[in-house]
């Protein structure tokens, strides 16, 4: 009885309502679906019960706001509706952010720069997009933008203003090359980061932000730096050094010194061709010292306009800028690993103090560029927006247990 397969006996062996019954795969598909949805709802349900809306946050809050984690209404307010944006009033509740740039055509919203829910970021730094609201295509109230109108990224950031002006009117003379090259001095011998923790605000902006106190390089002071090599030796006989002060201060000191010396060393009167009288000796010595000072010691760095000698010499005012970057800020401590020369390369060859040794923006771009492999190139890396000087004090509203309650 060969087993024959005909259309009829194949067709007939299936009963026509087999679809009504449920089979494993479709069954499991349904079970899993329901299960999946249940899990999801359960997960959200639990939070909803605890009236904790963290799951819906679009990202972790910055540590600063972390304590508000559960209370979305604090920032977001209660008003329903599309795009319940956090408007400035919510921020102002706690922070009384200073007023915006005077010349801004509009006051961007806090959130346009300070975008929360991005996890552990320096919220105060804001995001570039916030700056670009204006700077991408700068218009100011007065119509004339003070800086380049179209800056939308570090890449097309214009050259630093100071660098652009290419002159360092310090009123001094200094030959880096001599010091670094011949005398193989280290940069740190002169330029030392500021030791003392100056409140950033003092320098930068209220609220500080990340710029650390050591960010700035102190101005090399005579006393601190130049003294050992460029002692203001009045005379070889005097052990005292001249004070590093205006001539009108140095002159009487020298005289006093000489007088004191002579008084102590009357013997030196008339020696070496010096007048004999104490006063004359003193004058003689003073004049000689001052001349030495004037022509040698002091003119090594300073330039004088001394039509009548040292005493009344007018020292061209020295103006070593404390901060090159007026608008941005540069944090030397962040670049500790780099050698000074790697940025200030021209220092090694600059002979004239007027050379602006500030590295160009190109140097910065070598590390700071868009893209994840390079150091941050967002505006907030260097610039601060708010004018913290106009910060208004904020009285705290919360007491700890409230806050802690906020954060049960």
């Amino acid at each position, binding site marked *: 009885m060969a087993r024959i397969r005909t*259309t009829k006996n194949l067709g007939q062996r299936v009963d026509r309502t087999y679809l009504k019954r449920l089979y494993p795969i479709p069954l499991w598909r349904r079970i899993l679906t329901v299960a999946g949805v249940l899990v999801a709802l359960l997960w959200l349900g639990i939070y909803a019960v605890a009236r904790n809306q963290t799951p819906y946050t679009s990202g972790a809050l910055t540590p600063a706001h972390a304590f508000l984690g559960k209370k979305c209404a604090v920032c977001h307010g209660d008003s329903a509706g599309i795009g319940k944006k956090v408007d400035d009033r919510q921020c102002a509740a706690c922070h009384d952010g200073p007023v915006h740039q005077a010349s801004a055509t509009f006051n961007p919203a806090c959130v346009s720069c300070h975008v929360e829910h991005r996890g552990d970021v320096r919220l105060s730094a804001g995001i570039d997009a916030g700056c670009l609201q204006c700077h991408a295509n700068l218009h100011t109230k007065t119509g004339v933008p003070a800086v380049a109108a179209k800056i939308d990224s570090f890449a097309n950031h214009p050259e630093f203003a100071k660098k652009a002006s290419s002159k360092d009117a310090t009123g001094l003379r200094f030959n880096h090359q001599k010091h670094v090259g011949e005398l193989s001095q280290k940069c740190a011998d002169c330029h030392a980061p500021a030791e003392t923790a100056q409140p950033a605000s003092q320098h930068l902006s209220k609220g500080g932000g990340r710029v650390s106190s050591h960010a700035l390089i102190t101005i090399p002071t005579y006393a601190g730096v130049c003294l050992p090599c460029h002692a203001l030796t009045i005379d070889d006989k005097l052990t005292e050094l001249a004070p590093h002060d205006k001539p009108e201060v140095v002159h009487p000191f020298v005289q006093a010194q000489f007088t004191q010396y002579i008084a102590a060393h009357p013997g030196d009167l008339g020696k070496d061709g010096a007048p004999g009288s104490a006063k004359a000796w003193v004058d003689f010595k003073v004049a000689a010292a001052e001349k030495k000072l004037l022509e040698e010691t002091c003119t090594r760095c300073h330039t004088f306009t001394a039509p009548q000698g040292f005493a009344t010499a007018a020292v061209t005012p020295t103006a070593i800028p404390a901060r090159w970057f007026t608008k941005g800020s540069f944090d030397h401590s962040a670049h500790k690993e780099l050698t000074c020369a790697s940025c200030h390369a021209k220092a090694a060859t600059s002979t004239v103090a007027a050379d602006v040794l500030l590295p160009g923006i190109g140097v910065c771009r070598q590390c700071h560029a868009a893209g994840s492999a390079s150091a941050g190139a967002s505006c907030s890396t260097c610039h601060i927006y708010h004018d913290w000087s106009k910060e208004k004090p904020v009285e705290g509203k919360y007491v700890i247990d409230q806050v802690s309650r906020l954060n049960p």
Partner: protein
Amino acid sequence: MKTLELTIDDKPVTVEEGTSVFDAARLHGIAIPVLCHAQNERPIGVCRVCTVDCGDKVLQASCVRPAENGMKVFTASDKVKKHRRMILELLLSDHPSPCARQRVSGDCELETQAAAEGIVAPRFSKRVSPRGQDDSSLVISVDHEACILCDRCIRGCDEIRQNNVLGRGGKGYNAGIAFDLNRPMGNSSCVSCGECMVSCPTGALTNKSVVRTVLPGGDPVGVEELKTLPFFQKVSGTFLDLNKNAVIRRHFKAGEVICREGDYGSTAFYILEGEVEVFLSSMSSKKETAKEAPSLFEMFAHVFSPKKKPGSPAQNGGNIPIDSVVDLSLDNPVARLGQGDIFGEMTCMNLYPRSATVRAKTDCVMLEMLRNVLDVIQRNKTLRAEIEKNYRKRALEDHLRTVSVFSSLSPEFIENLSRRVELVRYSRGEVLCRQGETARYFFLVRIGFVKMVEEHAGGDLVLAYQGKGGHFGEIGLILRGTYAFTVTALDNVEVVRIDAEAFQEMLAGFPDIAFNLKKVATERELHNQRHSAAVSAMSLEKFLGQGLMEANSLLVIDLEKCTRCDQCVRACSDAHEGVTRLVREGLRFDKYLVPTSCRHCRDPLCMIGCPVGAIRRRNSLETVIEDWCVGCGLCARNCPFGNITMHAVPETGAPKAALAKRKATSCDLCQNLPEPSCVYACPHDAAKRVDPNDFFRDLISPSIDSGPFAAPDVPHGGRR
């Protein structure tokens, strides 16, 4: 009367003049053995067994030889016995002893006489060319082998009953008895009176024992009482006696159900007294139950749910063909039958399921009869006339009107047409008209099924099956002059035949009908030609093996796209109240699966035998099962591909509850939808409804290079 003296076996005998020697001997107690002579029949002296020695040069056949004065007759002399034995031996050598009669009742005259004469084994060789049997009659089985051509049956039929059906055919050794134009007995004008069977000496004509099955539930009717009925008068008493318990008298009280639609049966009913009501209960169950107010969702869903094309169930004319003299009209399917009516003819003759439910309106008395008795009644000339008159009066008009083409005929033309048509019966296998013969009739089928076949050099091609209401012959009469195809009867068929003159007269009288008929004819002609052209191009054996070329619209599923997601089956069950008409199971052909879903065959075997013509083609090629299906399951069994299944019908609890327990279901190509749901719902474009001859043309006759079905996703010009 003058008397004659003669001596028989030396015994003086006096008889009247003109008596035959045989009678003279018989009157005096001398029995001369005979075979072809019967007392009640005219002697013809062909068997020669009765030859005796009358002193002439040759022996004389005593049955025909008139006695003469002074004749000396020796009936048992050695010479006579010698020749009698030789004749019996000759007959016995061709006789299939023991013949049917000898086996049944042991009284075959030839074998008895041969035994009496001591003939054991005939010395002659057996007959080489067999003359065969004829089983076509319902009542009498004919075994030509056992026939000794004694002519007793012929005289019985022609002279005693004057039915003039039987005669001698052929010549010499190939001579034999022949009905009408030597047609099988069942197909001849034989009225089954049984006279020939009663008078046959051997087992050539014996009674078919339908008699064994005794009909339950009624008192058998005696022969005398049967004789009182008009149509039994001409039937031979012995025959009625042999079949007496094949007919019983039944009494039914008012309201009692006599037979139920869809049941199987083998009897017919003749109403003696009272009236019955005939109706189709399955129609009532299908009425659309009133829909409550649609819910919002349904309102909304309605917008998207498929638009139902207003398909009216019965395209051609408003009535349902059932198995009685009257048809049921579609709107109120109830009819009445009264005294003298017959119903259940098809069930009894062709063993079809009952096509309607019959319930007694008043108390009534009925004759329930088996097939052989019904056959007698039907062949009875008087009753045939009465049935015909009945049919003409009641059913012919609207039966003619069911032919869509005649619907616009004027009533009086139909009136005179119905007088001139003939009601002709054909039995199984008979040819109604043969391809190529001059067309002389227009046929309209009343009962039974016919098959229309077009003969080809390469073989025969079945064009269509026609059941009740089917008509053919118009192509012959109008277009070709000869019949376009051969039509054979599949079972007992009764057709209304309109001869050529009446037909032409009708065409002349009614130009619009002529136009319609021409259109139908040319349409059918075109279809046939196209169809036969397709067949001749086929060459692949497997393609034919699965009967794919039969399909008009075949569902194929591209197995390389189908992800077996059963979406098609789900769509199908949605489109058909939860019962799918498609099962994704079946044989494969090339890379396609041919699932179990109706193929709408060109030669739809399923349509044969449907008692109510529920499964049919409306006006297009799709096979559709109408609502009034009675659930007999015949089409499901006939379908060779198992595409039709039976489904329980939901109980609607309506007063006339659906008595039909189940219904046949098969794919109707989503008639009322713009597109078959399975194809529409397949997300992977794997299911397609195609005409296999075109779709697989590239495969089955590779000589034609470019496949016509350049569906975008099939790389052009090549198979896998």
